[in-house]
């Protein structure tokens, strides 16, 4: 059962072979047994979850069920959920009970999906290893000595360890795709504007995008059917016709042109990852696709551009945490200004403060043109690289990350080394394109490797189809850590 896809679970529920309450309890039991070792969840509330499950069972009984009614889902703790503690991985929001639902959470509730709890994450989504979480790092289910990636590391580990059949994530510079790669699951970052950001705690608003994390591309497509769509409460939400993201799942790959950016196969790529990605490309050729070499010449610049734009936007977004309206307030202060300074000094962790500092500096008087404006101009050059590339290929493929899951502490002391590990994912956010990570092999130590698929704007359905055909021909996505099966 824990390896069943969403379609199979939906069938079991529809045929009344299992109730939503039973299914929810199965996952709550797994969380109770395994989460102490993995730390994938920050908040679990069995009572709230089971109440939602009973409501779902009532809908199923009256014939009012949708495609996913009764199936549990875990939410990254960046999404506000009415009545649920929502921490964003920070001491600043340690006791914050959200007073309303994020659009994404509400969409899943309306669909009758059951919230299993809130998953661990890097503080305010700033990190690539989950080590910046105030609630402690998540362990990689494949290797407890290794990080699960970040920032959606709790969601990734929860799905990888089968503590949840599916989860939500958010991706600002790779935060869905990189942890998906490092934990051997499938994750999609949609085109910017396709999923509403309402109620999603803001990090870098021009880059943040929510997406599904699950065991397969097919499951991600079903979740996208619920998540995506126009929402007037997000000023950058796009007004587009409703799509069926499962529509291209069966589309054959014959004649598909895959672009391979030479910059993604250059120095810095580990041998294990290179081998697994090559094997995946070989599989795609067997399925009828052709590969062509392409160039994304400004790839290297995506990191400096990102580390200007994201901190700048973050410094503005995080100004709201001032100890007045919600969240942490320092216990001792002299006056109003000292209250702000003490609250923010004690409420934020080191990485968050570093980024607020960088962002405040680049936006300060006299530096705007040299940093923020220059970064926005190079951002356009990076986006143009992709536009150019898509004139000669249908999809871009390469590694999601340069290496597999690394050890705790290995990069934590050196922010730059951590930043560089996002070299293949960041440009996709800057350009606003959809991107996926799909498991495609293992390294010598048995840790997963991710294949990245990048599509043109609004090509999510096609990307999901391209990933699905690969998953029909291979079984990397179906594997799970063997020591977690019986528990």
């Amino acid at each position, binding site marked *: 059962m824990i390896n069943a896809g969403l379609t199979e679970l939906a069938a079991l529920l529809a045929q009344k072979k299992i109730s939503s309450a039973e299914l929810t309890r199965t996952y709550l039991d797994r969380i109770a047994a395994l989460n102490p070792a993995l730390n994938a969840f920050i908040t679990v509330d069995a009572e709230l979850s089971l109440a939602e499950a009973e409501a779902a069972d009532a809908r199923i009984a009256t014939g009012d069920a949708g495609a996913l009614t009764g199936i549990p889902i875990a939410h990254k703790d960046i999404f506000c959920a009415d009545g649920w503690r929502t921490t964003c991985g920070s001491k600043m929001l340690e006791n914050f009970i959200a007073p309303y639902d994020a659009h994404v959470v509400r969409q899943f509730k309306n669909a009758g999906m059951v919230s299993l709890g809130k998953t661990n994450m890097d503080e305010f989504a700033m990190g690539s290893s989950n080590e910046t979480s105030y609630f402690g790092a998540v362990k990689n289910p494949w290797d407890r000595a290794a990080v699960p990636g970040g920032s959606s590391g709790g969601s990734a580990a929860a799905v990888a360890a089968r503590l949840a059949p599916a989860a939500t994530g958010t991706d600002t510079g790779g935060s869905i795709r990189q942890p998906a790669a490092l934990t051997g699951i499938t994750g999609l970052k949609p085109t*910017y504007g396709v999923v509403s950001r309402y109620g999603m705690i803001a990090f870098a608003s021009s880059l943040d995008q929510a997406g599904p994390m699950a065991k397969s591309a097919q499951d991600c497509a079903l979740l996208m059917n619920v998540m995506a769509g126009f929402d007037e409460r997000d000023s950058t939400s796009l007004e587009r016709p409703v799509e069926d993201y499962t529509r291209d799942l069966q589309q054959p790959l014959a004649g598909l042109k895959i672009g391979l950016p030479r910059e993604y196969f250059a120095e810095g790529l580990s041998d294990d990852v290179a081998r697994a990605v090559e094997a995946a490309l070989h599989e795609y050729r067997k399925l009828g696709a052709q590969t062509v070499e392409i160039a994304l010449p400004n790839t290297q610049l995506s990191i400096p551009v990102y580390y200007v734009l994201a901190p700048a936007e973050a410094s503005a977004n995080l100004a709201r945490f001032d100890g007045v309206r919600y969240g942490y307030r320092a216990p001792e202060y002299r006056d109003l200004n*000292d209250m702000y*300074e003490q609250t923010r*000094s004690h409420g*934020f962790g080191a990485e968050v403060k570093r980024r*607020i500092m960088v962002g405040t500096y680049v936006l300060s008087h006299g530096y705007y043109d040299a940093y923020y404006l220059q970064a926005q101009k190079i951002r356009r050059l990076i986006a143009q690289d992709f536009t150019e590339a898509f004139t000669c290929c249908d999809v871009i493929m390469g590694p999601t990350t340069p290496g597999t899951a690394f050890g705790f502490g290995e990069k934590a002391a050196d922010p730059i080394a951590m930043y560089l590990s996002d070299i293949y994912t960041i440009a996709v956010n800057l350009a606003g394109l959809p991107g996926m990570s799909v498991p495609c092999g293992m390294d010598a130590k048995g840790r997963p490797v991710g294949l990245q698929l990048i599509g043109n704007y609004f090509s999510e359905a096609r990307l999901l189809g391209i990933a699905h055909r690969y998953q029909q021909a291979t079984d990397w996505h179906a594997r799970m850590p063997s020591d977690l099966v019986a528990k």
Partner: protein
Amino acid sequence: MSLTLNDVKRVARLARIAVGDAEAATWQQQINGIFDLIAQMQAVDTAGVSPMAHAQDLQQRLRNDIVTETDQHEKFQAIAPQVAAGLYLVPQVIE
């Protein structure tokens, strides 16, 4: 370019983050490391390139000027650090 210790303290003040001398020195080193990385940008010729704020060319949506929100101040203030009579309490600013 690199930030001096005074720059770091000035930025921390702008960002409303209290910082001690030892911590400021650590930040100075780390933030200068980040600016070394960012310096790669300065060599790029961007003459004639228009800045890109968002991926999609969006028009700001307008709506009719009517009240759509309901009054939920009690619910929202229930999670505030200090509230009295519907007001958020902060240290006195006017003598």
